[in-house]
């Protein structure tokens, strides 16, 4: 059965890799794609990496995007606009904590909007 994909956007490729490890210890069958660092793997984000990650993470059930700070959000929004054929949703939640929770829920076969709502409900954050 196809699952909702997760895209991890971080200024640091290590952060994205670490979250991947953390999730994979628990959940194996959910597509998780990383968009950490710039094209040269410096600190920053890359629209191209995010777009590719969205495309790879989509199994037809859509993709949830998690990001760390500030400008990653803008790059994520642009990438979503440029991959309009895919149902991709950016979520404001703690990066590590939210992505972990979403992966477990996706593993249980939940739908994109339900996972989105669960994560939002769990982390009532004004900002993140």
């Amino acid at each position, binding site marked *: 059965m196809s699952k909702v994909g997760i895209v991890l956007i971080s200024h640091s490729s290590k952060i994205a890799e670490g979250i991947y490890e953390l999730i994979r210890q628990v959940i194996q069958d959910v597509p998780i794609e990383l968009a950490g660092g*710039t*094209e040269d793997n*410096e*600190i*920053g*984000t*890359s*629209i*191209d990496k995010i777009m590719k990650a969205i495309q790879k993470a989509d199994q037809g059930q859509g993709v949830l995007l998690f990001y760390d*700070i*500030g*400008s990653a959000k*803008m*790059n994520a*929004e*642009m990438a979503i606009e440029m991959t309009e054929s895919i149902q991709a949703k950016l979520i404001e939640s703690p990066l590590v904590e939210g992505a972990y929770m979403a992966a477990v829920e996706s593993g249980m076969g939940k739908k994109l909007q339900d996972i989105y709502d669960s994560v939002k409900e769990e982390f009532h954050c004004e900002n993140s």
Partner: protein
Amino acid sequence: MELTIEDTIKWMQLTNDKIQKNKEHLTALDQVIGDSDHGINMARGFQEVMKKLDAATYETVSDVMKDVAMTLMSKVGGAAGPLYGTAFLKLSMSLKDSQKVDESSFAKALEEAVQGIIMRGKANAGEKTMLDVWIPVQDYFSANNVKADELETIAKTAMEQTKELKATKGRASYFKDKSIGHIDPGSASSYYLFTSLAEVIE
């Protein structure tokens, strides 16, 4: 003023020259209230823009700007990438149907570019971002018969005035009151952009 394809390429060329020359200055500005990469980001982005423009041939100003947009978007990184990218994309889209780019069509395009930056970054005037240069420049284009020296002065003054502002958007906002007293890096790179435009329309 009229902006031809050659003018547009020249504009980018002059901007690139200034950014490469002032790469360290931009980085130094970003060091005080940011993450020290604005010079690196912009230099990388505009270098790629020049590579792209040198290798292609163009039929319209709009097409040149579209390539500028796509390149900045994917090569600059950081906040400046999507912001400059969006700005040039809006310029390109607004000028799509203009046979020739005159002052009024450019003024209109600039207005849409500013709207694009606002939409993308959710900032507004006075938040110590590049908008604090883009908005006064756009106002000047809307209201006046544009003169190169006036354009230069307006962009420069606007950049300098960001010094007194407190950042409430972007990386600099983490510094709160301590962001006051320093020029905003994105405003400095925007100044290079508009002073290069002034040179072109001189």
